[in-house]
């Protein structure tokens, strides 16, 4: 493993099984990985288990899902052994999650500034005025030009890009060690997407957080992350440095990359991914 010497999160043999009327669906099938103070991308198509992986770390899986693992170590404690009260403390304080659409993650009737300040005060016993100060600093840190004005806005008054920056501010203000971002920029326009990613990149590198970046966009992950895990059918099929993603060796990763329409040359026919049944249980390439 090429990760940092002391990982923040180490997951060993994680399984997520979902019970449906048609039987048990294995959404995640025995994956192991570590995250240090780095940006780790998890890529895969819908149904590959990438979202379930992120959610199972924070125990945010649906009721019908059973999560098991040999170990899910977070800074020396096993997350699986924590009770619900201790887990609540970990959520937000230790590990935060940034969702795809800020519209559904912010309370529509509370000013955004107050929501961020509240997120801070839940985990730090400080006076309201100090929380406000910290919130304004944080809003400035996510490059919001007029923090004082934005503090007083309601969620419906902010644009998609600003909403996602507000979400980042809210998730980062308790200084978590690990951030899980599930498709944080998929709902944004391409030009706005780059600004939001810049903000996230700066904060994560400056403050030394660990970041799990879940996405379906290979090009984006290749440019943004340090390391990439490629998931297929509930398993990690390949793990490589993000810079080497375009030289990936696994048939699935190569197939995905080839099937993307390209801006530099035209092809009459896009190569279609030919799914090899051996990928389901083949070895992990790294």
């Amino acid at each position, binding site marked *: 493993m090429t990760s940092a010497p002391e990982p923040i999160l180490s997951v060993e043999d994680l399984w997520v099984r979902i019970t449906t009327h048609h039987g048990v669906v294995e959404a995640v099938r025995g994956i192991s990985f570590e995250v240090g103070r780095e940006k780790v991308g998890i890529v895969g*198509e819908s149904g590959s288990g990438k979202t379930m992986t992120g959610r199972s770390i924070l125990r945010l899986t649906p009721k019908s899902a059973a999560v098991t693992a040999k170990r899910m170590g977070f800074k020396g404690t096993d997350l699986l052994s924590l009770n619900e009260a201790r887990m609540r403390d970990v959520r937000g304080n230790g590990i935060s999650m940034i969702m795809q659409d800020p519209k559904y993650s912010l309370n529509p009737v509370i000013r955004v500034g107050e929501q961020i300040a509240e997120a801070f005060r839940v985990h730090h016993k400080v006076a309201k005025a100090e929380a406000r100060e910290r919130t304004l600093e944080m809003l400035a840190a996510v490059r919001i030009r007029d923090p004082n004005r934005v503090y007083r806005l309601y969620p419906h008054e902010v644009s998609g890009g600003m909403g996602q920056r507000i979400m980042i501010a809210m998730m980062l203000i308790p200084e978590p060690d690990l951030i899980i971002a599930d498709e944080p920029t998929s709902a944004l*326009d*391409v*030009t706005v997407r780059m600004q939001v990613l810049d903000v996230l990149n700066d904060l994560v590198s400056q403050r030394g957080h660990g970041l799990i970046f879940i996405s*379906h966009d290979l090009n984006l992950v*290749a440019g943004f992350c340090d390391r990439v895990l490629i998931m297929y059918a509930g398993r990690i099929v390949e793990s490589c440095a993000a810079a080497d993603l375009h030289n990936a060796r696994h048939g699935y990763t190569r197939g*995905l990359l080839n099937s993307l*329409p390209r801006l530099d040359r035209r092809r009459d026919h896009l*190569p*279609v991914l030919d799914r090899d049944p051996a990928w389901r249980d083949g070895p992990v390439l790294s």
Partner: protein
Amino acid sequence: MSALIEVNDLRVAFGHGAARVNAVDGVGFSVDAGEVFGLVGESGCGKTTILKALCGLNRAWTGEITIAGQRLTPRREKSFYKLVQMVFQDPYGSLHPRHTVNTTLMEPIRIHGLDDPNRRIDKVLREVGLGPDFRFRYPHQLSGGQRQRVAIARALIVEPKVLLLDEPTSALDVSVQAEILNLFAEIRRIEDLTYILVSHDLGVVAHMCERVAVMNHGAILETLGVDDLMANRCRHAYSRELLESSRGYAHELSA
């Protein structure tokens, strides 16, 4: 070689009084028969609104739209819908959840009183790469890509001349996107079709189209050939920014 579709000074506004917003503000373009024309831009730039005005879903427009020599009015005759069809963005929302594939495909046949329904359904299902055993499935038994194929079959069954594509692959996985994009190319080889493709994804537009109009704030900034777009020979700074952002994250940093 006259244009199949001509749009002049198209305007669409939403709201009234002070809250009035011009979603489309004096847009004009023309598309030749057999061409694939792209409309690119970010959300809210008015590209989908143009499609809705073209296909008759939005009736609150002013300006001139001519398709196949017919000057269109906001209200359309039934025969118009045999000429122009549309494929929607979200395959999860564009199929009636209580209707089987068969019912979905029977509806246009019944509406237009077409003959030989079984032959038509079999033919169109084969054309979009679905076997006849898909006929009695409900949408919830289909994957996203299969749903989009059914939606394409529904559009093709009336044998239209113009297909309007509203972000037809943006809700799909990249491997499925490749299949659907290939399908569009194949269909165009078999049928005599003209496409207008709306997308925010320059990669998709560059792959599919011959000419592209870049839109921003309800107006077309420039119309250019796809080769010019790919070679970054855009005149507008906004088009260049769009192109740079589409190339990926690292490119933005180095720019």
